[in-house]
Structures are given as C-alpha cells and as structure tokens.
C-alpha cells in the first residue's frame, strides 16, 4: 500500500478533511463526527419527507420510554424540526407500566429529557388507568404471557394519552433492526396478515383513533447507540426486566449474524419486506382498479392536488422536490370538490395536506385534533365498560382486566365469550407494539 493511500485512509471517507472517529455500522465507512451526525440526521429527514410524515402545525406525541431509541428520536426530531422548519409541535408521551427498578429510573430520564428538549410531557400509568401495575400483574399471573398484558395495556394507554393531549399521531422509536426482525418473524411464524404491511412507516389501525409512525425505520440500532454516545444524550440503558419469548431471540441472533457478514443486510431485509405483496391483496387491488376505471369519478380524486398550484412554500416540503407531482399527475385540475381544497391557496396549514393519504381514515377535525373515541374508522363498536374502540362487548384490556380482577391466575382469553382470537394469536399481534 502506498503512502498516499495510507494517509488518505486516515481521513474521513466523506469529507476527506477531518479525522475519522468511528466506523459506520451501515456501510463500514470511517467517518468523522460531523459527517456521521449529518448522514444520520439527513437519512431520518429523508425518511420523514419521503413519507410526508408531518404537516405544519401538527402536534405529534413521541412515545418516550427513556431508552436510547426514543431519546435519540426526540433529540433528532427536535433538531430537524428546527433545521428544516417542519412547524411541528412535539410532545413527550410516556407510559408508566409500574415495573419497579426499570420504569422508575427510565421515567426519571424522560423527565430530564422534557427539560433538555423543552417539550411537554404526559405520563400515563397502568396503575391509574387499570388499577394494576405490571409488577402486580406478574405477581398474579407469573412470567408467562406478561408481554401480552403489557402490549394490550400499553397500546390503549398510548391511545388514551394521545387523546387526552388532543393528539392523533404518535411516533415511536422502532429502528431498522426492529423492522428487519419483524419481517423475518412474520415469515418464520407465518403471520400472513402482517407480512406485507409490517414495513410500512405509518401503521393505520382500524381500532385506534391514533396514527403511529416510525421515523427511525431505516436507522441502525448500532448507529443510534453511537449517535447517543457521541452526542452524550441522557438515556436509560437497562432492558425491560420481563423479557420476550425465546423464538424471537433466534431471529434476533440471525439478524446479528447477517449484519456481521454483510452490513447492509438489515436494510436489505426491509427492502424485501417492502416488496412483499400478498396474492389475495393483489387480486383485490386489481378488482378495485378495474372498478375505478369503469366509473371514473372525479370526487374520489386526492384533495391535495391544489398544493402544487400554491405559491406558498411549506418549508418542510421545499427540500424535497416534486413531492406531490406523483399524485397530482393523475388528477384532473377541475376535479376537486373538496371544500377544504377549494379555498384560497394561502391557507395551507388548515388541513393536513402534507400528511400521508392514510391519515384521512382518522377522525381529524379541522384543527388536526381527534374527537375522543368518536371515529370514522371501520371499528364501529365501543367497549361496554370503558368506551374504548372495540368490535366486541369488551375491549381486550377489559377482558384481561376481568381475568385479573377475578383473581384468575391463567390467561384464558381463548375461552372468553368476547374474544374470538386465541391467546397465541393475540400475543403474536401485540408483540410488536412496544416501543
């Protein structure tokens, strides 16, 4: 190796000026601090703008656990919000599961984050909401299935916390490793229902008034660790004391090995996951397309066609060119019958036009706030006991609570009159909900 090559190897492989301080896990490149920060943040920004995740004026809750993922998420979102003028108001939303020694300390971290990042903080506790802490639940049911309880309760707690804050969008710290793991898990466990949707950045649930999204879906866990380390972010390191099931561990180990032999494996798995289309869904798609061409109705055209005509530049979208032209090319200029988009082109912040099209499934009123548990989602029913969205008489949380309250030691929802799904399926569906 010549001397000139040797000396160039000592410099950052992107800027060729600074001394590299780390080997980038995603690519193996040796980078200086500022280049690493830049690519790390820019990739998240690209993910956000590409998915049109936020709209100016939106209030968004960050599901904050005090762990590295959600801490980095909060820090980066604050940074990008200021750098690119997203115009979004971020709020920290924390769940207190009542796990002594784990959650006590992590909540302290979140409370410090509130001050560090100058964001509001809302804490919803299992104890207040359900009358049971996770410690009490585990004391009653043992270590088995406790992730099922935690999953059901957390999901509803997040929804309730959001509704309380008047927020209809929660971002969570799911990272690329989590996504890749989920793709493989769905294949390995035959979870067809989720196979083609698990990589979507926005999770649109029929039984939740709140939209969930994952801005870190392409961000490597190792890079989150490095970023938090070099930025000296204040986060809590201990894992949940109630660990998940063994089989997921095998998938995690496989991904670790794949990443070791080919660093891009994690995004390669996600790329594969994004390409999965179920035959069944494709048939529906083809049928729908055929029906749509048969009856060409202008009223069904997307209402954001006007945005490109607007002279107002939304700061957040100005960095990505042609964000809207894809959808607008198929739209007739005269087709807009939506009153919101018929208004003048200056009122750009009144409607969530820059929000992803899926957000129309949610009951967002003109201020972007959800109406508490009154909904236009497919889920029409309400839980008789607590009012939460549910197709059954009792929602899942109330079913679990009934069992707990009756002092039953076993999770026996399969036999319950209200829940048609088996407990295995239920736990399967709930497993990925944690943040």
């Amino acid at each position, binding site marked *: 190796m010549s001397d000139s090559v040797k000396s160039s190897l000592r410099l950052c492989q*992107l800027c060729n000026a600074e001394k590299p301080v780390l080997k980038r896990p995603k690519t193996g490149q040796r980078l200086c601090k500022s280049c690493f920060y830049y*690519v790390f943040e*820019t*990739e998240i920004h690209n993910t956000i703008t590409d998915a049109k995740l936020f709209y100016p004026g939106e209030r968004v809750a960050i599901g904050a656990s005090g762990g590295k993922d959600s801490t980095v998420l909060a820090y980066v979102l604050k940074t990008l919000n200021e750098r690119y003028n997203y115009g979004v108001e971020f709020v920290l939303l924390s769940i207190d599961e009542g796990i002594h020694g784990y959650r006590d300390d992590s909540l302290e971290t979140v409370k410090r984050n509130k001050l560090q990042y100058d964001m509001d903080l809302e804490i919803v506790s299992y104890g207040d909401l359900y009358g049971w802490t996770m410690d009490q639940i585990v004391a009653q049911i043992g270590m088995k299935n406790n992730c099922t309880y935690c999953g059901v309760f957390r999901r509803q707690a997040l929804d309730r916390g959001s509704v309380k804050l008047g927020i209809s969008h929660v971002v969570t710290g799911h990272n690329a490793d989590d996504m890749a793991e989920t793709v493989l898990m769905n294949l390995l466990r*035959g979870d067809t229902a989720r196979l083609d949707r698990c990589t979507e950045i926005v999770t649109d649930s029929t039984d939740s008034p709140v939209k969930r999204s994952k801005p870190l879906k392409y961000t490597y866990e190792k890079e989150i660790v490095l970023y938090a380390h070099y930025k000296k972010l204040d986060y809590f390191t201990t894992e949940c004391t109630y660990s998940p099931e063994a089989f997921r561990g095998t998938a995690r180990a496989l991904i670790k090995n794949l990443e070791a*032999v080919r660093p891009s494996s994690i995004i390669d798995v996600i790329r*594969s996951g994004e390409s999965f289309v179920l035959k069944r869904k494709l048939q529906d798609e083809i049928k729908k397309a055929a029906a749509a061409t048969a009856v060409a109705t202008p009223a069904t055209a997307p209402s954001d066609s006007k945005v490109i005509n607007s002279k107002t530049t939304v700061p957040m979208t100005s960095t990505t060119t042609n964000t809207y032209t894809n959808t607008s090319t198929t739209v007739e200029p005269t087709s807009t019958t939506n009153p919101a988009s018929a208004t003048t082109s200056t009122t750009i912040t009144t409607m969530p036009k820059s929000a992803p099209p899926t957000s129309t499934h949610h009951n967002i009123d003109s201020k972007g706030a959800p109406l508490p548990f009154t909904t236009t989602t497919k889920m029409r029913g309400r839980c008789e006991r607590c009012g939460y969205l549910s197709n059954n008489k009792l929602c899942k949380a109330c079913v679990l609570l009934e069992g707990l309250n009756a002092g039953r030691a076993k999770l026996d929802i399969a036999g319950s009159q209200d829940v048609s799904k088996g407990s295995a399926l239920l736990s399967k569906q709930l497993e990925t909900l944690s943040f």
Partner: protein
Amino acid sequence: MTTHTTDSVAPCKRCQEPSVLISRSEPFCKKCFVKFVQYKQKKRMEDYKVNYTPGAKVPDVLLPLSFGRSSLALLDMVADMLRFQSSTHGGRQGLHLHAVHIDETGIHGMDGDVQETLQNLRAKYPECSTITSVKLESFLEDPSVNREVVKIVASTSTVSPNNTKELLAMLVKRTPQQDMLNIIRLKIIEKVARDLNCTTIIWGHSMTRLAELVISLTAKGRGNTISDILFSEQSEPRILYPLNEVLGSEVADYIQVQSLDQFVLSSLSRRPATTKLQSIDELVNQYFVSVEQGFPSVVSTVVKTAAKLAPSSAVYESRQLEVSTCKICGGPAMPDSLEWLEKITVNFPPSADGLQENQDHQESKDTSNELCYGCITLFKDSMVSELNWPKRSTKEEVLAEYSLE
C-alpha cells in the same frame, strides 16, 4: 435421522413390519418410507404420465445434479418412476430424463471423482436418457453466453476477469461469490435446457432448502423474486420442485435406506468455522439446522407463508411500474433501487448539499437502472465498503482526454 440401534423396534405403522426409522413421529419400515417419500414426488409430477395420444411428444425434462443428497434422491425417484412406467406401459415413458452436473472442479475441488461418479450413475440408471456434465467455465468460454456479467464486473474494477475463477475472485467475499456462482449455475442450466429442448427443469430442493431460500432471498434484498423463483406457475421452461414437501432430514434418510451414500459428493470449499466468514446462505442453513430442533414446524410455515406472495410481474403490471431486466441475474430491476438506497444511506458530506446530490444521482443511475436491488447489493458488498458506480465521463474528463487544444 432417527435410526434405531436397539432391538426395541416399534412396528411400521403402515405394514406392521419392524421399522428402521422415525419420520414426523411415525415409525417406518424401509419399503413404506420409500413409498411415502416417492408419493410426494409423484404427486408433484403427475402431469408426466405415459401419454397414449398418437403423435404426442414425450417431454424432455432436465434434472440439475449437484451430487448433493437432494438431487440424487430426486434422480433415484424419477428413475424409479420411469422404470415403473416402462414396465406397466410396454416400454413407454412419461418423460425423457436428462441429468446434468455442473463440473466446478476448476473452481474448487470435490471429495470424489466426478467423471467416475457420472459413469456409475449411468450404469445404475439406464432409464435416464442422458447423464452428462458441463464445465462451469463454459459460462465464459461460450460466445453465445451472456457476457454482460463480465462487462459489469470489469466496469467496477480496473482489470477485466479472464475466466470464471478470476471473476469470482474479484468479488472478494464469500456471499457475493456464492451469489454470483448461483447466478452462473442458473444461466448454465437454462442454456443446457435450451440445448436439450427441455420444457421442464426439476430441482431437487427439499422443503427445508426452499425455506432456506425464502429467508436468504429476503436477507439479500431479493424478496420480490421469492414467488417468481419458488412458486412460478408459468415460466418457460417450467420449473418444478418435486421434493417441496419432503423435509431435508427425510432426504437424508432416503439416501441412506436406498444406499445412495456412495454417490454423494461435496465441495472441498467448506463452510468456514467462524460465523463472520460464512456466506449468508450458510448462515441461513445453520439457522434452520438449529431452530428445527426446538421449533419443528418452522420449515413448513415459512414455505407455506411464502407461497402466499404474488409474483413480481403481476405486481408490477397491476401498479403500472416499468421494470427492466437485471443485466446480471435476469430478475426484475426496479428503477428506484439506487435512489431508495441513497436516500437512506447518504453518501456525501454536509457541505455538498443539493446540487451535488442530484449530480451523483444522474451519474450513477445509468448503470444501476440495469441492475436489480439484490445485484446492486452484491457488488456493493464485494467492493468492501464503498458504492463506487462506474460513472459516465464528465464533460471535463472527455475534454481533457480528447480535446487537442
């Protein structure tokens, strides 16, 4: 393999004779086990019955033979099927079987003599129309073979590979090397199928191997082709996996009870002991070996789940996506692959915003549009860390080289 060594032998569940092995928790005697496995193969190949229609052409079927257990087991089963057809239909057969081995001894050694083994197989299976071998090197020697691969590999480097061995060496790491080897093997098999007018290719893959393929294609960013490769219903020639319901362990049992061990040859290019040096295929293989014990249903779950995926061509057609053919593997090449990658793997320093980013896109797009995501990844991996696409010469470079001013 659960072969009995003690005398406390459970009777075969099907005929009450003493059993020799247990498969799917059922004790089998040799005869019933062979029948059980062959039934699965025959069911898959029931289209290849003896055809009495006057003037009907007997189809030529190609069986790629690696001398691994699965392809040998399939050869044995199809030969048995032909023997049976011939004896019950007055010498008629439902298909002409051509077995072809790709001789890779120019790349890596084998733990046995390839030509001798071929001889022995010809003697053992006279029902086979041909049992031949073709050299891996033919891929580059034959002018009719697609030379794009060499062109593209050469364009990523300063030297051009002169032969297959050099080509593989240029890919540096084990995963891209094995990927390229697999692509080359497929291209050779396709060519042999054309040369022999075969309308069907039957692969020996067991269910376990298919599950491994699903996961390893997913891991390599080739998930969009799972349905095309594994469950293709209308490819030309037709692709069949007759052992797709036979477990890897059952193939091993079959080889043993049929005394076919002597024909099994393996490559001397062994799996490295350290995980970090193994290929993705090897890692995935190991994963299934370890997970199958604790979770025996995983293999069939993966295959059944993957079978629900739609073929890529149907997806692209329905979504009106223009997709070209990958210059390396021949699979679908999405036009957005490199753009997607660059958005989530930013490759320029803070100062070089905006313009430069767009320029990079323009320059690299030319080549990358011709490659699928999986092949882009293959080359990216083999070039140590940097994605260094051959770029078209800039105006300045052209002027510097050609202008005489």
